[in-house]
């Protein structure tokens, strides 16, 4: 039975206008006609130069989607989305498929510079030496504008490219795995994504290969009234390893924008995938105007024995987050992990968590979730842990902690636990706490400002999860959390 913990209190005004990535880039864009129809899907497919089977796949998804209803079970509320008022495709007019960085619109390059995303390999190579290198795929609205270190990765046998390119160049791999973890019919937003997805990353790591660098995709929504429908597919073949990170930002706008992504991970025997997200979509202003609707389906399939999938997420952005990165623990002895920090401030609404589905024998999973609610936000952890009849020896450990800042926000924990065999051992721990005025006073008495004190206490609270992030991102994430909470006290 789901245990529901609730804490909701009264009103306090705060300022959340701290978003530092809210600028717009002036680039001439080519867009699909507004709204959604078979013609629009044909338009997208043609723009991407897709084979016929891909177009059919999309059209089937679209037909299916027309019969589906938007889910309403999450603890979030928003005005009805008019799916015919959105542009489903927007790409820079000048050279939408650049072959090298020299062909990329300088305005777009400047955008990534401003965001601190390195796209020039030489510059990265010339940087301070012990710095770890990271290959980047940069997705701007509906298209990938640059992918770095492709050649070097190819030498190791690793395929890292925009998914639209992979559909043309590696159709067999894509056909074999696309939709094999998140089926076309999975849910309303995933089905919509299957019909209209525009770009995202494709990764294939061959057997026995340890990917020589971190891979990352940087998603940027720029165009007005445009949805972003990214699709990412990562396959780690037998005995391979890959670590992948995604980041996201968007301009400040008064209207809401939809981001409905699907991410599929497949880990074969003895393979390991680490997937980290630093999500910083525009969260809307203090009154709840604008911001991204982040409705995302992420799922990993530990298909092979002894495989491992780890999701680590730091969620600070979006007006609404609806997201449950999950693991299907199919292979015997496979392991799934979920580490999450979800920060909400202002009028943000978060309904996020994970599903650990134990199918194989002796499968283990671990969930560490830290929710931080400030302002007038609502922050819900929703998680499922289930053990199949045949999943003997399944084990799970769940720890869900919520921290409240101020007395107008809410934190909720909704765990679902289902066990169909007697040998499964599931543990669940949950706490809800508040930064007390006494703690604040103590820190201030020692010389910390109110904001420094909050940041210190919050960082202590999320420490277990930050440790899971790759070093350089952990530092970034720590800063990001502090920025998101600026103005949440006092």
């Amino acid at each position, binding site marked *: 039975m789901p245990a529901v913990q609730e804490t909701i209190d009264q009103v306090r005004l705060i300022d959340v206008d701290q978003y530092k990535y809210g600028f717009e880039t002036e680039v001439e864009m080519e867009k699909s006609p507004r709204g959604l129809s078979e013609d629009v899907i044909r338009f997208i497919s043609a723009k991407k130069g897709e084979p016929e089977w891909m177009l059919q796949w999309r059209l089937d998804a679209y037909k299916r989607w027309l019969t589906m209803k938007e889910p309403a079970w999450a603890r979030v509320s928003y005005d009805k989305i008019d799916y015919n008022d959105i542009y489903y495709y927007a790409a820079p007019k000048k050279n939408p498929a650049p072959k090298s960085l020299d062909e990329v619109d300088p305005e777009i390059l400047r955008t990534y510079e401003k965001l601190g995303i390195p796209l020039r390999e030489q510059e990265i190579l010339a940087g301070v030496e012990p710095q770890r290198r990271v290959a980047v795929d940069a997705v701007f609205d509906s298209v990938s504008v640059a992918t770095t270190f492709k050649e070097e990765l190819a030498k190791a046998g690793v395929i890292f490219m925009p998914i639209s390119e992979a559909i043309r160049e590696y159709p067999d791999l894509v056909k074999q795995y696309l939709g094999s973890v998140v089926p076309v019919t999975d849910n309303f937003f995933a089905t919509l994504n299957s019909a209209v997805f525009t770009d995202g990353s494709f990764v294939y790591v061959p057997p026995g290969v340890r990917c020589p660098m971190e891979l990352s995709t940087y998603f940027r929504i720029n165009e007005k009234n445009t949805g972003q429908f990214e699709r990412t597919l990562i396959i780690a073949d037998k005995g391979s390893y890959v670590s992948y990170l995604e980041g996201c930002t968007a301009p400040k706008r008064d209207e809401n924008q939809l981001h409905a992504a699907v991410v599929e991970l497949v880990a074969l025997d003895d393979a390991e995938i680490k997937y980290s997200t630093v999500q910083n979509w525009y969260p809307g202003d203090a009154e709840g105007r604008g911001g991204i609707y982040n409705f995302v389906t992420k799922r990993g399939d530990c298909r092979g024995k002894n495989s491992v999938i780890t999701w680590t997420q730091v969620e600070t952005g979006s007006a609404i987050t609806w997201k449950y990165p999950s693991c299907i623990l199919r292979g015997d002895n496979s392991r799934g992990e979920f580490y999450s920090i979800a920060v909400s401030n202002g009028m943000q609404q978060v309904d996020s968590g994970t599903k650990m589905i134990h199918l194989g024998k002796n499968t283990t999973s671990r969930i560490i979730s830290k929710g931080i609610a400030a302002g007038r936000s609502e922050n819900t952890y929703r998680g499922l842990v289930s053990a199949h009849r045949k999943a003997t020896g399944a084990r799970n450990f769940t720890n869900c902690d919520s921290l409240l800042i101020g007395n107008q926000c809410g934190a909720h924990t909704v765990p679902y636990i289902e066990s169909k065999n007697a040998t499964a051992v599931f543990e669940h721990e949950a706490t809800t706490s508040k930064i*007390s*005025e*006494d*703690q604040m*006073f*103590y*820190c*201030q*008495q*020692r*010389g*910390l*400002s*109110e904001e*420094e004190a909050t940041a*210190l*206490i919050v*960082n*202590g*609270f*999320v*420490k*277990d999860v930050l440790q899971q992030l790759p070093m350089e991102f952990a530092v970034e994430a720590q800063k990001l959390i502090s920025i998101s909470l600026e103005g949440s006290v006092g």
Partner: protein
Amino acid sequence: MLEIKNLVVQIEDKRILNGLNLTVNKGEVAAIMGPNGSGKSTLSYVIAGKEDYEVLDGEILLNGENVLEMEPDQRAAAGVFLAFQYPLEIPGVASMTFLKATLNAQRKARGEDELTTPDFIKRVNAAATQLEIPKDMLKRALNVGFSGGEKKRMEILQMALLQPSFCILDETDSGLDIDALRIVSEGVNALRSADRAFLVITHYQRLLNHIVPDTVHVMHAGRIVKTGGKELALELEANGYADYRETEAA
């Protein structure tokens, strides 16, 4: 150094301090004694700037500056330090991290450079050794799972590191066994200097055998009702506070 004039303070409509006057000079160790509920802890919180108290009248001057207009962190940077009766726990934040953050925040507020890590560690180790604080305690989350004695030693460690000019000890002796009392008192005595003043709040004479005060003030019903030398503490220990209660009734 510290001058309090006619201080009137209430909390939730309840008067706690009633026109309190107090002067503590540079280099002086002043003790405040008094029965429960006389307003001793309130006085320490009001000097440090805790929010819940409403100051209705009076002023608190630290080196001529009115501290009532400052935020608690500004008062800290100006040299006010309060050793808490019940130090707070900060889960997940290593004591070492906390010490560094606070020291650097104060240095920044005073326009000084941050300490280098080796320099910082040297200072912490020196102070920790004197207070018999083992190194692994510094790696643990601040005050989480610490014994009463460990918490109080950690307070004095912070005092030694931050080098404040005006130190308030709020019932630092409560919950300490004899050995811990000795260690803590030695730590405090080592910090006594001509530039630093102390306000030692306590119920009992016991602490004042270790930290010998220059002056003793008796507090009752939100006022200083008697001031004397260190012998006043002994007198109180023998006779209790009964005399002062009668004064009030009369």
